């Protein structure tokens, strides 16, 4: 054998062995690309998707919503219900109808430093949550808890000041480690700055999930390694890295070049980008589209005299072909919405008024509303007023701008002159929408959760005004006493069948009155390597990472 041949063979063997090492490493480590870095790691200060996604690896809520859309225990051992006796109806000290709910934490649940997760941690979390100066953003859930009884180290009872149907769901309560953070809460005003979640975010005692964070470089990346103290099923990957890449083109380039293994569905590509990616590289990756609870819609300004006529609102919806938009722009991956309730939600009602593309009906409704004449193709009424609206959305959001242009041309065909007037998100959400300064149509999305009562968006007491300091999110100014009553009843109705009937009525009213034009439910697109198994998109606000121990490498 010649020397050259020996050299070539040795080189080839070395390269193959290096390749094998590379593959083995790649499979013991997973690199995920995400588009956002959490602004804080504190579970209860500020809410953001990036933080939920990260905490899915490192923490467990007491309860969560599974991929099958059912409330399940993650840190507790049994979901308390009225039927199993762990939830008991009671009266509050001031004579109102309340409820006592008892939870038992998993016996082996410990923090990453080996200290058990106990009822004391839950009580400490409540003390922080309800304190007006702790900096916790959504404090309503904590304020509703009147008292917590510490039954033993692992068992505690909440006494809640009202009987809501979701009494056993405490997923928003992110348990804090009292043994670490209590000293930081001695001066509550300073807690937001002193909390160990931000001053010492790699402290293993902050985590009780399958992984613990070992590196956190703001705006760049985070590294997670197995939590040695995790009591549940061992996760398959030794290390998970999350790289923050905001630019979606760069995100695509990174997955193609092997810089990252997967693009998170929760914080990744828009569906139109993912559909295009699938066409180009679908054979190399595993791509899952999962419609979720992000409800894209157009809020209608009901102070506008033209839009006060329900026939005009219905005609606006009849004259747009949402099925075609979904099919052509999103490859049919984003289902058309009929109300704000997602078809995956158990409360969804199918037998409600629907508005398929029907120009004849749109024409009849507009004629009946007095917009029968046409001048240069645009409708006018008897007073020679033109049927004209402004449509606003977030400038720079490519998907929305694309949809907006299609809608504009479809409405023009119906004789409705719609003009595009977009603003940067900062102005749009900071001023125009929140202070009800849009003239007619505002296109944006609501992030919801399963069986979420749309009180803040539909109740008449939630119309923002100077008097209520622009509180509430009923930006359309929708007022319907029956809707108000339904919203109040649904929250307090414990019987599922009765509640379903109320939800049915709510959806019927919504679909008839149309305070907003439903467009579609946004889908998340998960782009993953073919060898990755066990990732189960949920379609709701609980991220896939909450079940990271089920992720594995295909055998």
């Amino acid at each position, binding site marked *: 054998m010649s020397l050259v041949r020996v050299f070539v063979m040795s080189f080839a063997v070395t390269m193959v062995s290096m390749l094998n090492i590379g593959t083995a490493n790649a499979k013991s*480590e997973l*690199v995920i690309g995400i588009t956002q870095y959490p*602004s*804080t*790691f*504190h579970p209860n200060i*500020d*809410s*953001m998707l990036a933080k939920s996604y990260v905490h899915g690896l490192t923490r467990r809520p007491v309860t969560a919503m599974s991929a099958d859309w059912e409330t399940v225990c993650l840190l507790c051992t049994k979901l308390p219900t009225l039927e199993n006796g762990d939830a008991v109806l009671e009266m509050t000290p001031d004579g109102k109808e309340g409820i006592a709910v008892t939870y038992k934490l998993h016996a082996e649940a410990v923090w990453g430093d080996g200290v058990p997760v106990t009822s004391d941690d839950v009580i400490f979390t409540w003390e922080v949550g309800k304190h*007006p*100066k702790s*900096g916790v*953003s*959504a*404090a*309503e859930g904590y304020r509703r808890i009147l008292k917590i009884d510490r039954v033993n180290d692992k068992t505690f009872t909440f006494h809640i000041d009202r009987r809501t149907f979701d009494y056993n769901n405490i997923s*928003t309560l992110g348990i804090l480690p009292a043994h670490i953070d209590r000293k930081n809460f001695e001066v509550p*005003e300073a807690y937001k*700055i002193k909390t160990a*979640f*931000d001053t010492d975010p790699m402290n293993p005692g902050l985590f009780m999930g399958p992984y613990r964070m070992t*590196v956190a*470089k*703001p*705006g*760049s*990346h985070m590294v997670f390694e197995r939590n040695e103290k995790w009591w549940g099923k061992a996760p398959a990957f030794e290390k998970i*890295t999350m*790289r*923050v*890449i*905001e*630019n979606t*083109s*760069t995100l695509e*380039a*990174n997955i*193609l*070049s*092997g*810089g990252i293994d997967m693009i998170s569905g929760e914080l990744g590509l828009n569906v139109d980008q993912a559909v295009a990616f699938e066409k180009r590289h679908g054979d190399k990756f595993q791509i899952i589209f999962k419609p979720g609870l992000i409800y894209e819609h157009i809020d209608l300004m009901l102070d506008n005299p033209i839009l006060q006529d329900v026939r005009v609102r219905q005609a606006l919806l009849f004259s747009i072909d949402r099925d075609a938009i979904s099919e052509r722009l999103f490859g049919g991956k984003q289902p058309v919405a009929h109300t704000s309730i997602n078809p995956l939600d158990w409360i969804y009602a199918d037998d409600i008024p629907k508005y398929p593309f029907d120009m004849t009906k749109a024409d009849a409704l507009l004629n009946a509303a007095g917009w029968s004449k046409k001048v240069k193709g645009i409708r006018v009424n008897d007073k020679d007023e033109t049927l004209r609206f402004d449509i606003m959305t977030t400038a720079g959001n490519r998907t929305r701008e694309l949809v907006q242009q299609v809608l504009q041309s479809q409405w023009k065909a119906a004789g409705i002159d719609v003009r595009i007037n977009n603003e940067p*998100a*900062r*102005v749009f*959400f*900071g*001023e*125009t929408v*929140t202070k009800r300064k849009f003239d007619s149509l505002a296109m944006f999305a609501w*992030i*919801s959760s399963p069986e*979420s009562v749309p009180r*803040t*968006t539909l109740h008449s007491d*939630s119309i923002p005004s100077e008097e*209520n*300091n622009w*509180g*509430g*999110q009923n930006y359309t100014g929708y007022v319907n006493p029956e809707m108000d009553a339904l919203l109040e009843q649904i929250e307090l109705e414990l019987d599922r069948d009765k509640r379903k009937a109320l939800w049915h009525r709510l959806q019927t009213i919504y679909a008839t009155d149309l305070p907003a034009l439903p467009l579609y439910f946004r889908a998340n697109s998960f782009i993953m390597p073919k060898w990755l198994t066990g990732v189960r998109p949920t379609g709701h606000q609980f991220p896939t990472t909450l079940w990271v121990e089920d992720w594995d490498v295909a055998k």
Partner: protein
Amino acid sequence: MTAFIIRRVIHSLIVIVVMSFVIYGLMGLMPGDPIDLMISADPNVTAEDAERLRAFYGLDQPLWSRYLNWLGAAVQGDFGYSRLYAQPVWAAIIPALQNTLILLISSLTLALVIALPAGIYAATRPYSVADYSINLAAFAGISMPPFWLGILLIMVFAVVLGWLPAGGTADAGGASGMWESIKFLILPVAALTIAGIGGHTRFMRASMIETLRQDYIRTARAKGLSENRVVLHHALRNALIPVVTILALDLGVLFSGALITETVFAYPGMGKLIFDAIMGNDYNLALVGLLLATALTLIGSLLADIAYASLDPRINYTDMDQ
């Protein structure tokens, strides 16, 4: 000279204080506040919560009062807390500043090393094939949109050839060692350098052509000096003065303006940090970031003035000191 520098430093401090007020005021005029952004991200935040949080963060106070509070603390060395990064402002800024300085110093050095000789070469052979070629390349560099150039470089060198990482930093890619760190820098530095070469070459060429027309250059040539000596010894120092001025002013712009390059290459630097702070209504972070950019421009301008004195013997600050 010392008195001149001290006077300029005092002037700069006054400019920074005035700028802090202007920037704070401008940010206050922007619509919405951090709580509005919080509400849009979390439907569970009630109107009561929003009011409580506004009071907690002091957002219910008038703008001037918030500014005075900030200024009072800043004078004592406390520049506040970044709401976006949940850290003291400096803790958020320092890593980004380091990244930006590495990026900028590398790209600026490389751009100058290429642009200055190219500009001089073109100027000494005006309207020749070499001059036209250099001009064409310079215009191509100036005209290429940075985001397009960035994506192009990524597609060619990371996706197609697979030679270089597509973006991020070495530690984000799990790499270690000097060469690994350099590999992550090559594409963003190349993008910034290509964009910078064009402008600097054009400035250098124009300035050198102008200088070569001066009487003292004619005199030097008449004395029989070699062309290289005329250009490099007599003309270059004077020709560099306008280039130094542009460079000094560019320093601040480059510092905060590498936003597109940083975004395309997922490179956590100052440009992106300031942009995110403004869009996320993080007053403290945006303010300190923009003040740093202001300070850098002022320092650049001071360095340029000092450089003038060494480049041109006719410039003397001693008279001004008296």
